[in-house]
């Protein structure tokens, strides 16, 4: 299927997806709303006590900036400079995490102290972030406009990103509690199909990197095996930290994340160590790095890059060379993954029409309402739609989860 045909078939499926909508547990949503509003109020009161200012508002960037960069004298954080203009002062979540020594536990989503700086500052910063989160959960996630059948009809923006990925309010729902309001209707299950490690597979396959191809052929834990390759030890002897480092490089490459980013996020790794890990990865996955360099060169010369489906990303304006390289690296795996997912969506929409109903798209995953009767057969058909080879040599294994509500997928 050619790109324009694929996009239009995907749009037809998305139109039906929007029309059907996502079923919401209205009572649960209301309950969670009340919970979060109460929690936000409690945290706000606590912050007023901590700061000694009875009018302190954690949602006011100006007040937070005055407190952190003025009162506490923490290093001022700024947004990225654009078009030759310096970035403005920011108090977004990343900035607060950085100056207050906070890191987010990826498993529990708790805001923990990274051991750098003052514990009191960490406590203040994490309370501000917690308060913001509660407010956001209540106002953004638990106040959905529902129709008479308790369904929410999201605005799917097919042209929402430059990589072709859809953008939608639904994509911002954090895993767990927030997503648990989206449920399967009676007699149905919510089947979530997720393309496993798709971006990594795309990069290894398109580059033809022999080490990466070998890891894919062996199957199993790709990050553990990557760590084994980088640290020159058997996969069984790879430590948790080593696996984490390998995972960071694997997932970070498509997003242009380098050793600086690794050292910043991983508290136990110094910048020198992070550089050594990246060097080791570079030395082991030489073909992959050469492929990325070739892509960067092509994009610099031609001011565009294209994915295997012909989707192009143009670069114009004042974009710097480093940013163009980052976006080039990011574009191919992300856009290719999205186009593969659209193929799966179109297949499910046409082959299971009237039986199974796609209800959401979430980056590399699709959520489908599947009748409990004949669940096994339908799930197998969904798996086939995901795992059909769309690019020669690219295997796209799919992880299928059968759920009662979307929140269960975090388990």
């Amino acid at each position, binding site marked *: 299927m*050619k790109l324009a045909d694929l996009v239009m078939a995907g749009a*037809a499926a998305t139109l039906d997806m929007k029309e059907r909508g996502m079923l919401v547990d209205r009572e649960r949503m209301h309950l969670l709303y009340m919970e979060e509003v109460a929690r936000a109020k409690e945290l706000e009161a606590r912050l007023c006590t901590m700061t000694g200012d009875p009018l302190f508002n954690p949602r006011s960037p100006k007040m937070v900036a005055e407190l952190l960069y003025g009162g506490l004298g923490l290093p001022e954080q700024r947004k990225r400079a654009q078009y030759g203009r310096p970035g403005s002062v920011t108090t977004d979540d990343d900035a607060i995490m950085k100056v207050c020594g906070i890191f987010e536990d990826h498993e529990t989503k708790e805001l923990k102290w990274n051991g750098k700086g003052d514990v009191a500052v960490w406590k203040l910063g994490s309370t501000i972030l917690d308060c913001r989160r509660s407010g956001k959960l209540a106002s953004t996630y638990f106040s959905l406009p529902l129709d008479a059948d308790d369904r929410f009809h999201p605005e799917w923006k097919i*042209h929402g990103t430059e990589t072709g990925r859809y953008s939608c309010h639904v994509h911002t729902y954090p895993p767990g509690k927030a997503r648990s309001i989206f449920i399967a209707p009676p007699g149905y299950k919510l089947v979530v199909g997720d393309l496993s490690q798709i971006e990594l597979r795309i990069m290894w396959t398109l580059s033809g990197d022999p080490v990466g191809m070998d890891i894919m052929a062996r199957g199993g834990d790709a990050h553990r095996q990557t760590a084994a390759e980088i640290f020159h030890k058997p996969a069984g002897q790879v430590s948790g930290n080593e696996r984490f480092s390998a995972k960071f490089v694997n997932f970070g490459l498509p997003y242009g994340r380098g050793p600086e980013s690794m050292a910043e996020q991983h508290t136990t790794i110094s910048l020198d160590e992070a550089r050594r890990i990246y060097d080791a990865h570079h030395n082991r996955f030489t073909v992959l790095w050469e492929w990325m360099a070739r892509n960067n060169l092509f994009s610099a010369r*031609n001011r565009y890059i294209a994915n295997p489906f012909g989707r192009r990303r143009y670069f114009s*304006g004042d974009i710097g060379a480093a940013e163009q390289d980052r976006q080039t690296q990011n574009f191919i795996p992300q856009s290719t993954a999205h186009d593969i997912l659209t193929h799966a969506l179109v297949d499910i929409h046409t082959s299971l029409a009237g039986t199974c109903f796609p209800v959401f798209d979430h980056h590399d995953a699709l959520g489908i309402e599947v009748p409990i009767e004949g669940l096994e057969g339908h799930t197998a058909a969904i798996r086939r739609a995901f795992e059909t080879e769309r690019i020669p040599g690219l295997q796209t294994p799919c992880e299928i989860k059968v759920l009662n509500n979307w929140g269960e997928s975090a388990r």
Partner: protein
Amino acid sequence: MTGVCSCTINNWPGTKHVWGQGPLRPRIMIVGEAPGAMEDQDGVPFSGGAGRILDQWLGRTGIKRAECFVDNVVSHRPPGNDISLADLHAAYENLKVRIRNVEPNLVLLLGNTPLRCFVDGNIGDWRGSYFQVEAGGKSFQAVAAYHPAYIMRDKKMWDVTLHDLMRARDYSRTNQYWEPSVHYITHPSHAEAREFIDEALRRDCVVVDIETDYSFAHVDLVGLCYEPCLAISVPTDDPQFVYQIIRFLRNTKGIATHDSIFDAYQLRRIGMWCPAPKWNTLLYSHILYQHLPHDLGFLGSIYTPFPYWKDQIEKRKEWYNCRDVDATMLILLKQFQELRELDLISESSLPSCARRVSEVATPTMLRSASTTAELNVSGAPTITTSGQGNEAG
């Protein structure tokens, strides 16, 4: 055009009068905002940084600066680059006199300041528009484009501005304003709506666009177009019209829209089942030029000969509805051509009208606009339509 400065307005102490330069009766009169520091020093318009960019654009588009008359709205450098509204209005009158005296084939308005001499709008909306302006009791052709100083700050629109200059170059071959002949049926009778829909049902590609109220809760109008410059706007406040719209939606061979999800979903939501659009200008634009805006106004400025019309919704909603579907049809035909060139669309998914694209010679560009060799801007459109209009655009 030089002499002793006799400016009674905008003549700030210590500033030089920067005279417009170039031949009389030129192909293009280029009008900027006001002299900068360099211009004030040299006494030559567009001699600073913005002038260097303008020279690059002229070179790239094959326009000779020596054949242009280059001028500014204000002839003296304003203190702090700030011009009061009263000063500006006086300068506008002065500019119109100069345009009348210079008698160019076409006026190229660079930026908001010269644009607002003639239009109550923004350059972001109006850039690329080809329209007619009045100066000293005479009509002149005009094209609006971004000012080089703006592009110096944001180069994203560099290629688009090149396109706008090529449009100015091509229209400046003559001094005759060209207006496409259109037939928009804005307040149809039942018979007219039925006849139009009968014909639309025979076509394999019909553009559909809806107009809603502010809350998007109610669909007021449904616009249809099956060939360029011929469109109808059907109201939904009459059961007979509603029946005709439903008849069309149920039996159509294929519809095209600008925003595939929005229009079709809104129609389905109010009980008018609408098939999924087969073709979509917004999504094709995202495929072709993902880095540029995708709104209909922008695409219209690239692919159609129509001046900016998106500010007309309040004044004449039915006409606006017709213009939307007409513009979408013209855009679609050009996009088919570009998608075919890039081998991004299968022949089997193209409607028969896609083969008629050569008959609709609208200006276009934009493939890798970093190389002018690939830009292809044709001359004035040669669109003709038959039929009698009850409102011409």
